[in-house]
Structures are given as structure tokens and as C-alpha cells.
């Protein structure tokens, strides 16, 4: 029963009581109208803030669970007035869209009430649920023409567990977390329809990411989750682990969505091979530098070919490697590119590329901005819903109070008016909440593409570093050549030949040959990366356009649906209070 509240404790108690009260309310209205009787246990602790929108979101199931709903016939939705529904229909039926999945009508009122508990079980594997929203959305989009709806690969990350490193020391090894990674797929590459699991730790993911970066230079590879050492110390362990789990899942799903990378050996191995991950681990910077320092003297002072960069290493950027000398040379080259007076031997002449790079940068800025404003919008919608609900609740309490204490008919009339208003406010509040959870899904596309912009930058960076390698090698050749010429000139003056000089000349010529070979390899690599860039950017542009269009449509359809619902609810109250319409009376 709604007792009267203690005035001081109002603020606190009401916020917490809100959700419970809304569930326990018994307004004595017939079932159809009264959404309060149907339980709406979201279990969210309603704090304001975008974060809570996300956590609320993760608790509310997806009313639009797959398969994506098609048009709902008008009679099943009592709240959508027929006339408005006609408009709805006619604007779509005239032009058949390429895919049914590209937009989803807001669910009818009836569906919404029950669906929080009706999550399709196949959207969850091993208890993972919140990220399913994201994946469902991305699954339901039709993107590149190559992915037909029958191919699928679905990855879930779950079940974090603490494990201990085996170690010989007395103290015992480090503990770390492993995650269960479950893949469900019907791709032939994985051996037909199957489901399998492995356990991996975060370090393995870093390894995977690094190996992919090496193998797929020039590609837009989705960025892996951060190592975020600081966060792990600041947050609660559980929170951190959960955050990481979500991030890992997103990352792996993005990888598997990439048409080329999904078929990579690295990914396959990562997903399938039990036990230790059979990929070469990345070494940390310190040990690389150490290795490089060991090699350096030989490179500088040693024989012949030692100073030339080994051909096979040319295909990797200098920065991540052990070859300090090469690193130094390329650094010098890049400085001279930027500050030197002369033009480097090969210049990035592809104007189109430079423009594209500029555009991508702008685009990234705008996506960041839009994504921030989207967050604000979501927060504002959520706050609106919350306050509307609180208002409704306050009026329900008033209604009960007036009814209990009624000594005059005017009070009873007022109590009734209040009840109508309160009911509408509570309904509207629920609509705002639902509207918002949908909005979050749609606008999340913007967040997604932030990640992709980083991937693009990575691809462009690959190109730049490959070019730098070419430039460095090219600029070495003339100086080597000159040295040979000088030595030959000097040696020819000595009668009978200069043994040491001749040997030196031989060595230099060998170096030149190696360098020439390396240069050719580097140029080929550069061209390859350029081509990867081009096709990736094209693919990305295409997909991004489709995704953004879908996002907009989803967003708009959602807004229309819920605005209509709210309009109906309030129109009803206006009708119920029409005897108070002063405008009519005074006309």
C-alpha cells in the first residue's frame, strides 16, 4: 500500500522505490490498459547517466531478437492508430528494399511487455547475453554482398577463470585470467557446421593481433582491446574482467566479420587449437632492443652483407623489429623527408591517396563528435523517462491519498483525474526507456566505426612505413655506388692492385646487390600494400554507407513508433479531461 512518505527521506527512498513501486502498483484498472500489472522487472538500479543506460540495456533483453521481425499486422497493435499505420506501410511497400533485415518496426505494445524475458536462447551461448545485442544488430545488417545469410560464424566469450602460471620459484607464479571462447559456425574452412571452445588469456589475444598485423599489412584490421594497465588497478577486479570479456567478444566478432581475416590461419588457429596458442609470441620492446644491440656492431663493422638488411625482413616495418641499424637508417630517412631540402627518391605521388587520407581524418573527427552527441542524446532520453516515471509515481501516491481521505466528491473527481494522468506518465516513462534501449543499439554504429577508423589508420600507416623502407633503400644505393667508384679510382692508381681495397670493393658490390634485391622486394611489398589499402578502403566505404543508412532508418523508425505510442497515451488523457478544456468554452 502506498503509505505517505517521510518528507526528509523523500529523495532517496523514492528513487529506489520507483521501480519496485511501479511493479507492485495495483490501480484496479482493467488489464489491457494497465501496464503496471505486468511485471517489468529490469533489475536496474536507476542511477542517471549514460553508463546506467548501458547497464540497463544489458539487462533488458532484446525485444527485437532474431530473426528480425517483419511487418506486424495492424490489428495486433491496439495502440497504433490505423491511419498512422497506413502512412507507415505505404512509405515502405512501394519500394521493396534489398533486405528485410535492414530496418525493424518497433514492436507492438503487446510484444514489449513480455519480451524482456523472452530472449531467444540461441542468442546466448554459455550465459553471455549483453553483447548479443550488438552482434544481433551487426548480424542483421546486410553488408558486403559476399556474405549470404546462410554463412555464419558466431563467437562468444564467457566464463572468466583465474589460473596460475606454473613456475619453479618458491613464490609461485603469476595468476592470470583465461576466458572461454566458443565458436559456432558453418563455414567450410572450419570443417562444416560445428561448435568448439578453447581457453585463452589476454596475452594470446595480443599475440593474435600482432601476427595478424604482420600478415595483413595494408588491411583495415579491427583494433584489439587495450592492455589498460591503469584501469585494471583502479577498477574492481570483477568489473574489469567483465569489461574485458565484453571487449574481447566484440573484437573477435569484428575479426570474424572481416571477409579476408575471417579465413586467416592465425584466427583459425586461435579459435580452434586447444592448449597453448601455437603462434610465435611477440617479444617485448626491451628484449628486441637488446637483440638489436647485439647485432649492431656486426652490422656496422662487420663483413660484407652483414650491413645490408636481410631481404626477407624488408617486408616488415623496421619499427617492430630487432634491426637497430635499419631502424636508425629509416629514421634518418624520415627526418630528411620532413626537413631535408631534397625530395626523397620516391614520393607519395598518389594525390588520390593523400586526399583520401585527409578525408578519413576529417571523417574520424566527425564520427567522434557525432558519437559523443549521440551519448548525450541517449542520456537525455533516459533522464526524461526517469523523471516522467517519478512524476507518475508521485501522482499515484497523491491519488491514493486523496481517495483514502476523501471527504468531498470534488476530491474523488480530482483523484480520478490524477490517476489518469499518473497512468499515462508511467506508460510514457516506459516508452522512453524502451525507445532509449533501441536508440542505443542504433547509434552504437557510430561507436563501431570509431574502431574502424583506427583500423584504417593502421592500414595507412602500413603503407607509409613500407614507403619509408623503399625510400631508405633507394637513398642508400647512390652512396654505396659512389664509394665503389671512389675505391676503384683509388685502387687503379696503385700498381698491381690493392688487395685490401679490392676486397673492399667486392664486399661493397655484394652489398649493393643485396640492397638492390631488397629494394625490389620492398617496392613489390609497397605496391601490394597499396592495393590492399585501396580495396579495403573501398570495402569500408561501401559497408559504412550501408551501415549508416541502416542506422538512420532504424533510429528514425524507432522514434516514430514510440512518439506515436506516446501521442496516443496523452491524447487519451486529454480526452478524459476534456471537460476542463477552457479554450473551447471561451470561443
Amino acid at each position, binding site marked *: 500500500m502506498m503509505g505517505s512518505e517521510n518528507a526528509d527521506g523523500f529523495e532517496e527512498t523514492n528513487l529506489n522505490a520507483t521501480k519496485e513501486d511501479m511493479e507492485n502498483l495495483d490501480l484496479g484498472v482493467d488489464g489491457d490498459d494497465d501496464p503496471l500489472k505486468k511485471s517489468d522487472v529490469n533489475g536496474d538500479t536507476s542511477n542517471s547517466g549514460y553508463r546506467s543506460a548501458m547497464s540497463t540495456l544489458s539487462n533488458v533483453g532484446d525485444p527485437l531478437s532474431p530473426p528480425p521481425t517483419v511487418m506486424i499486422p495492424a490489428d495486433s497493435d491496439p495502440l497504433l492508430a490505423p491511419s498512422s499505420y497506413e502512412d507507415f506501410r505505404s512509405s*515502405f511497400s512501394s519500394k521493396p528494399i534489398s533486405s528485410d533485415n535492414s530496418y525493424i518496426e518497433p514492436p507492438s505494445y503487446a510484444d514489449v511487455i513480455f519480451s524482456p524475458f523472452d530472449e531467444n536462447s540461441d542468442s546466448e551461448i554459455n550465459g553471455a547475453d549483453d553483447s548479443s545485442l550488438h552482434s544481433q544488430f551487426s548480424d542483421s545488417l546486410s553488408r558486403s554482398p559476399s556474405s549470404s545469410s546462410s554463412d555464419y560464424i558466431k563467437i562468444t566469450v564467457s566464463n572468466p577463470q583465474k589460473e596460475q602460471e606454473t613456475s619453479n620459484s618458491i613464490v609461485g607464479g603469476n595468476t592470470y585470467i583465461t576466458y572461454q571462447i566458443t565458436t559456432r559456425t558453418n563455414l567450410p574452412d572450419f570443417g562444416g557446421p560445428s561448435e568448439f571452445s578453447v581457453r585463452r588469456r589476454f596475452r594470446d589475444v595480443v599475440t593474435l593481433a600482432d601476427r595478424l598485423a604482420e600478415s595483413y599489412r595494408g588491411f583495415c584490421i579491427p583494433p584489439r582491446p587495450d592492455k589498460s594497465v591503469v584501469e585494471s588497478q583502479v577498477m574492481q577486479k570483477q568489473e574489469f574482467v567483465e569489461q574485458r570479456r565484453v571487449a574481447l567478444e566484440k573484437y573477435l566478432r569484428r575479426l570474424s566479420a572481416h571477409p579476408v581475416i575471417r579465413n586467416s590461419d592465425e584466427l583459425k588457429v586461435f579459435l580452434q587449437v586447444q592448449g597453448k596458442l601455437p603462434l610465435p609470441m611477440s617479444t617485448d620492446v626491451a628484449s628486441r632492443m637488446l637483440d638489436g644491440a647485439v647485432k649492431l656492431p656486426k652490422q656496422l663493422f662487420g663483413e660484407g652483407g652483414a650491413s645490408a638488411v636481410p631481404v626477407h625482413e624488408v617486408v616488415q616495418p623496421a619499427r617492430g623489429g630487432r634491426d637497430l641499424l635499419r631502424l636508425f637508417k629509416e629514421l634518418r630517412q624520415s627526418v630528411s623527408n620532413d626537413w631535408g631540402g631534397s625530395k626523397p627518391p620516391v614520393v607519395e605521388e598518389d594525390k588520390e591517396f593523400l586526399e583520401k587520407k585527409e578525408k578519413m581524418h576529417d571523417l574520424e573527427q566527425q564520427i567522434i563528435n*557525432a558519437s559523443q552527441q549521440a551519448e548525450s542524446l541517449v542520456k*537525455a532520453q533516459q533522464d526524461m523517462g526517469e523523471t516522467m516515471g517519478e512524476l507518475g509515481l508521485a501522482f499515484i501516491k497523491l491519488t491514493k491519498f486523496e481517495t483514502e481521505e476523501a471527504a468531498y466528491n470534488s476530491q474523488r473527481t480530482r483523484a480520478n*483525474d490524477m490517476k489518469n494522468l499518473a497512468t499515462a506518465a508511467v506508460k510514457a516513462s516506459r516508452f522512453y526507456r524502451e525507445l532509449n534501449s533501441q536508440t542505443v543499439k542504433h547509434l552504437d554504429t557510430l561507436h563501431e566505426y570509431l574502431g574502424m577508423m583506427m583500423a584504417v589508420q593502421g592500414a595507412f600507416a602500413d603503407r607509409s612505413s613500407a614507403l619509408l623502407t623503399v625510400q631508405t633503400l633507394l637513398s642508400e644505393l647512390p652512396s654505396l655506388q659512389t664509394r665503389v667508384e671512389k675505391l676503384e679510382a683509388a685502387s687503379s692508381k696503385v700498381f698491381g692492385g690493392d688487395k685490401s681495397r679490392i676486397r673492399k670493393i667486392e664486399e661493397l658490390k655484394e652489398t649493393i646487390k643485396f640492397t638492390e634485391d631488397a629494394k625490389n622486394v620492398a617496392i613489390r611489398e609497397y605496391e601490394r600494400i597499396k592495393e590492399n589499402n585501396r580495396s579495403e578502403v573501398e570495402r569500408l566505404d561501401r559497408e559504412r554507407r550501408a551501415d549508416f543508412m541502416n542506422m538512420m532508418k532504424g533510429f528514425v523508425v524507432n522514434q*516514430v513508433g514510440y*512518439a506515436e505510442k506516446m501521442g496516443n497515451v496523452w491524447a487519451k488523457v486529454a480526452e478524459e*479531461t476534456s471537460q476542463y478544456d477552457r479554450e473551447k468554452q471561451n470561443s
Partner: protein
Amino acid sequence: MESTEQPRNISGSMQSPRSPSSHPYLSVSVTDPVKLGNGVQAYISYRVITKTNLPEYQGPEKIVIRRYSDFVWLRDRLFEKYKGIFIPPLPEKSAVEKFRFSAEFIEMRRAALDIFVNRIALHPELQQSEDLRTFLQADEETMDRFRFQETSIFKKPADLMQMFRDVQSKVSDAVLGKEKPVEETTADYEKLKHYIFELENHLTEAQKHAYRLVKRHRELGQSLLDFGKAVKLLGACEGEPTGKAFSDLGTKSELLSIKLQKEAQQVLMNFEEPLKDYVRYVQSIKATIAERGTAFKQHCELSETTKLKEINLDKLMLTRSAKVGEAEIEYREIKAESEEATRRFERIVKRMEDEIVRFQEQKTEEMGVAFHQFAKGQARLANSVADAWRSLLPKLEASYSV
């Protein structure tokens, strides 16, 4: 339409002024707020226009200039003279400095003052008050003088006596060890007091949420504006067809932002303000309850004193004391005072009975209007939102197929 039992059926400005010239009417409007003065001493003055055919008033129409403190004066006078009646409440004195002269605040205050005066003009007893006539008709200098008197430290002798008596009774209570305050304990009155106090709590909460709701409208409007701008910039980066779609989306978003700001103002004026007024009214009732308490105490105490004096007098008469004459005079005086106090108390009780009925009816009406307007406003807003977004859908279709 309100039903009031009144000696004269005077129609006011709240009803349509279609009364025939013989039908008594008194209609007041508060208009034309104008800022006067400079700096800290700046204030708003209002034109108060009175139209009436009542004989007590000078002529069919009178216009005077009044400021907020004049309204306060009127209210204080009525509160003093008409105990038991729920005097209509005034809007709060001052808001945050920079807000004090904003157009919206001034308009809201003007509207509230207009309602204030009209409620008085429509009240069967209050409308006959001489102070009301002074307020509506006196020239500005006279008004200033009155107002100055009221706020001055030099109170009238009667007030001083009253204050003295209050202190006296408090002291004697303490001395006599009377811890219990003397209070009415009838079941009905208890119920009423409980109702009023609880009602204030509930209403305050509702009003608080209503105010927050106004803020939410503004915030949502702002975020739609920012979102629209951001989306348009994003569209400018993208080529066609996405670019155009984003641009249209942004434009709609900006448009809706304006609608939201408008609705915010409407909710403030037509929903939150009436709720605030409701709260103020309840607080006014509480003040009346306090007055009734005081009157009851006086009535009780004077009754007791009278009885004591009577007993004393009887004693003296029996003993044929010389003091009989004096005692008799005292007794008669006290008795008259006591009867007066009892009369005052009973008048308050009677008035309150009528006032409660009136109050409940008035509030049902006023709240009904507020709810209706709120619902209409929200429905209108929701329809605008739906229309705006819906209009985009065919365009989104078209650009996608390109």
C-alpha cells in the same frame, strides 16, 4: 464554473464579461509589467485595471500602478482581518538575481498576481474588503504610505497588546508547568489537520518532479540540437547518398529541439506553476490553522479566566467585601473579552468549513485544467516528433536505393 453562495452574484474577469450592465461585476487584470529603477533597487511595476459597476468603487474603470510589495500588503491585511479564510497565496518574493528580470519569470509572476487578485475579487467575503478597494483604487502616493506603515517597526497599539498577551500566556504556561499546548482535539479537525500536512508533502514532491520534468525537456532539446549539428557535419564528410540523409536527419533534429524548448516553457507555466500554487495554497491553509489554534487558545484561556473571576466575585459578594464593585467591573470586562474571543474562534471555525469545500472544488477545477493542458501539450509534442521523423522515411528510402 464555480459555485459559491454569495450575497451578491458578482462576476469577475475569470468568466466571460458578458454580464448585462445591471448585473454586479468586478473584474480585475494585472498587466504591462515594466521595469523601473536602477541596479539593486530596480523593481517591476504592473498596471492594475479594475472594471466594475459596484457602488463602492469610484467609477466604471480605474487604472493604478502597483508593485509586488503592494500585493504583499494587501495579502497581509486580509490575513489579519479575515481569519479563517484561506487567503490566496502570492508567488514567491525573489528568485535568483539574474533570473529575476527574465521575460519568462516576469510573465509568470504577472499571471500569478493576476490570479491572486481575481481570486480575492471572486471571494464572497474578501471582495467586500476595504483594503481591496484601497489596493485597487488608491493613488500611488497613498499606497506607498499604507505600505510603509505596514512594514514599519512601529506597530499599532492593538498589535502591541496582542504580542504582549502572547508572551504573557507563554510565560504563564511555563510557570504553571502547563506543558501541554491547548489544542482542539475533535476527531474531524484532527483529520483535517493531518490531511493538510500530508497533502503538502505529497504536493511538494509532485511539484519537484514537475520542475525536473521541465528541465528534462530543455536538456533533451539541447541534446537534439547538438546531435543535429554533429550529424550534419558528419554528412558533409560523407559523399552521397549518406551525406544528404545525414543532413536531413540533422535538420529534423534541430527542428524538434525548438519544439522541445517551447514545450518546456509550456509545462513550466501550465503544469508546474499550478502545482506550486497548490502547494502555496496548502501553506496558506496551514497559516490559517495556526491562527485558529491561537484563537482557540485565547478562547479557552479567557473562558477559564472568566470562570475564575466569577468564582472570585461570588466569594467577594458572599463576604460583602468592599472590593465587590471593582471585581464586578473586572468580571464584566473579562467576560466581554472572553465572549469576543469565543465569537472570533467560532467565526473562524465556520469560515473554515465553507472554505474547505470551496478549496476542494476550486482545486479540482484548477488541477483538471492543468492536467488537460499538460496532456494536450505532450500529445502535441509527440505528434510533432512523429510527424517530423516520419517525413524522413520516404527520403531515406529513396536515397538508399540510389
